């Protein structure tokens, strides 16, 4: 799997993403600075990593979404390339129009930093094939603006088209306001683009790949991606 991890000023999880990609696919990703206008040849997957690009100035992800490299990322996505957008990357993808909706301040006004159970809503995507549908996994949350919002039509379309990939839940897999860490509509934690090739999610799968840090539930996401690009190649 040829992966390109985009690095913006203020990104801080790019090495974590790189480590997860290496572990799942055996191959180091290329790190691409935001001023570049091209992706490396034959890139299978673009990762927009977590962090605080541009210090979250204006709106989270707003300025990064307009940086030169994003034109190349948009072309890659339009051609059916895979994009994994994590946390601040998810905010950037929404601001760039790769995914619908927006992530606003957590409803309780608190930065959330903890482990969180999530339900994998679909296992038939390139991002989740190594999970079972409905499986409850634990990933790490670390965000202040993860409250997913979109207009009613967009939410209805996402739900109707099965584009909610991950939902916040309790340890038994039940969603509800008690299990929703940030006030997201319908406990949405991750969504897919219309062609199913772009995934944006607030939790950090790249940080749960080693038992030393509390779990390995995130690794399967990267293994899914590695398997999907092996089939394609």
């Amino acid at each position: 799997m040829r992966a390109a991890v985009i690095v913006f000023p203020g990104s801080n999880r790019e090495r974590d993403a790189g480590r997860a990609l290496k572990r799942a696919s055996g191959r180091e990703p290329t790190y691409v600075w935001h001023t570049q206008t091209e992706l490396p040849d034959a890139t299978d997957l673009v990762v927009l990593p977590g962090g605080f690009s541009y210090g979250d100035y204006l709106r989270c992800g707003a300025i990064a979404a307009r940086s030169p490299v994003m034109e190349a990322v948009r072309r890659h996505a339009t051609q059916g390339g895979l994009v994994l957008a994590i946390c601040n990357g998810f905010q950037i993808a929404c601001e760039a129009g790769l995914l619908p909706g927006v992530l606003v301040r957590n409803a309780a006004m608190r930065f959330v930093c903890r482990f969180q159970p999530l339900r994998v809503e679909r296992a038939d995507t390139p991002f989740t094939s190594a999970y079972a549908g409905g499986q409850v996994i634990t990933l790490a949350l670390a965000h202040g603006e993860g409250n997913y919002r979109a207009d009613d039509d967009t939410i209805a379309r996402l739900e109707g088209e099965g584009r909610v990939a991950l939902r916040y839940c309790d340890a038994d897999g039940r969603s509800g306001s008690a299990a929703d860490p940030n006030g997201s509509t319908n406990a949405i934690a991750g969504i897919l683009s219309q062609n199913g090739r772009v995934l944006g999610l607030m939790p950090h799968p790249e940080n749960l790949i080693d038992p030393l840090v509390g779990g390995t539930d995130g690794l399967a996401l990267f293994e899914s991606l590695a398997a999907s690009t092996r089939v394609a190649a």
Partner: protein
Amino acid sequence: MKARILVTLKTGVLDPQGKAIEGALRSLGVDGVESVRQGKLFEVDVQAPDAGAAEATLRAACERLLANTVIETYRIEVGA
């Protein structure tokens, strides 16, 4: 030419920051404040032949960057 751009949340969009400010005003004993919505103000110097051209430039600025029209609206005041 000087201009101001006001970006505010659309009606119905949750504004936790505004709510927190509202609560703080209440706890300070500032009476009569019924609700608070927080927004952003941009003061801009813009080069343009006339007010209409300046507004067109700033409209593009809002649409492309300054406002996220999923949740926000904007108002442009040229010559403010």
